[in-house]
């Protein structure tokens, strides 16, 4: 007589310990990226830390809904950005209002080519100045530049995080980069690192 086979065990939920370990391995490794983006969004370290902490906590609470193997960095950045828009940006006294289409693109290359073939320009600009210049970009451009140029997300990933079409990501990157070049150029001229364009 055949013995009844033992019932297969019900799929068990991960233990709290397993859950925490997988979160640390898959999500917490992106802490630096989240912090850098938060710092550029909020403009100060205290708010950035609060924002990141809250985003990580929310991510942890919905960790069971995250599919392992998909893009955790993009998922976390989306949570962070929603939190920023819904809870932090409201506190600002002057909501940003810039007509993005009125901004003149500026090509640093065309100007630099005239007088500085060695590109010594870049060597003279310090880290802080680059981040200050990034901070001066309108938020829509700042986000795109950070996500692409600093955090290395693809256009598709950025489009998901920012909830805009890929074409919009491309144009924001183009304009944001050109604007960043213009700001660095102005800075370098003001510091006497390079000569300004003759008028």
């Amino acid at each position: 007589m055949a013995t009844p086979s033992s019932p297969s065990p019900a799929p068990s939920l991960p233990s709290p310990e397993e859950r925490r370990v997988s979160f640390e391995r898959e999500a917490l490794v992106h802490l630096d990226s989240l912090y850098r983006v938060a710092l550029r969004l909020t403009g100060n370290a205290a708010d950035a830390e609060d924002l990141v902490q809250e985003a990580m906590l929310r991510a942890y609470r919905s960790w069971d809904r995250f599919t392992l193997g998909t893009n955790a960095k993009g998922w976390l950045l989306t949570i962070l950005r929603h939190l920023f828009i819904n809870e932090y940006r409201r506190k600002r006294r002057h909501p940003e209002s810039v007509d993005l289409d009125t901004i003149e693109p500026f090509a640093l290359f065309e100007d630099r080519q005239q007088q500085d073939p060695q590109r010594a320009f870049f060597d003279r600009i310090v880290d802080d100045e680059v981040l200050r210049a990034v901070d001066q970009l309108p938020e829509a451009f700042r986000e795109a530049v950070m996500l692409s140029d600093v955090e290395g997300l693809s256009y598709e990933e950025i489009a998901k995080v920012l909830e805009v079409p890929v074409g919009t990501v491309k144009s924001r990157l183009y304009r944001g980069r050109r604007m960043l070049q213009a700001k660095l150029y102005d800075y370098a001229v003001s510091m006497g690192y390079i000569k300004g364009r003759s008028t």
Partner: protein
Amino acid sequence: MNCRECVDHLYEYLDRELTPDLEREIRDHLSHCPPCVEQYDFEDLFLKFVKARGSAEGAPPALRRRILEELLDE
């Protein structure tokens, strides 16, 4: 491909966002167009510069500790 088209795709090329066919066309153009190469090199340098300078800073260690403690409390 002419210079204008090449420059139009400059960032997509550097961001590795082009189809393999278009990427090949750009490479072909660059192989015989020094002015475009110079512009590409400059933008490439610029993007590497932003990446290096922008990612110099990471999260403070105290923040990591706070988050880890918070996870234990959950």
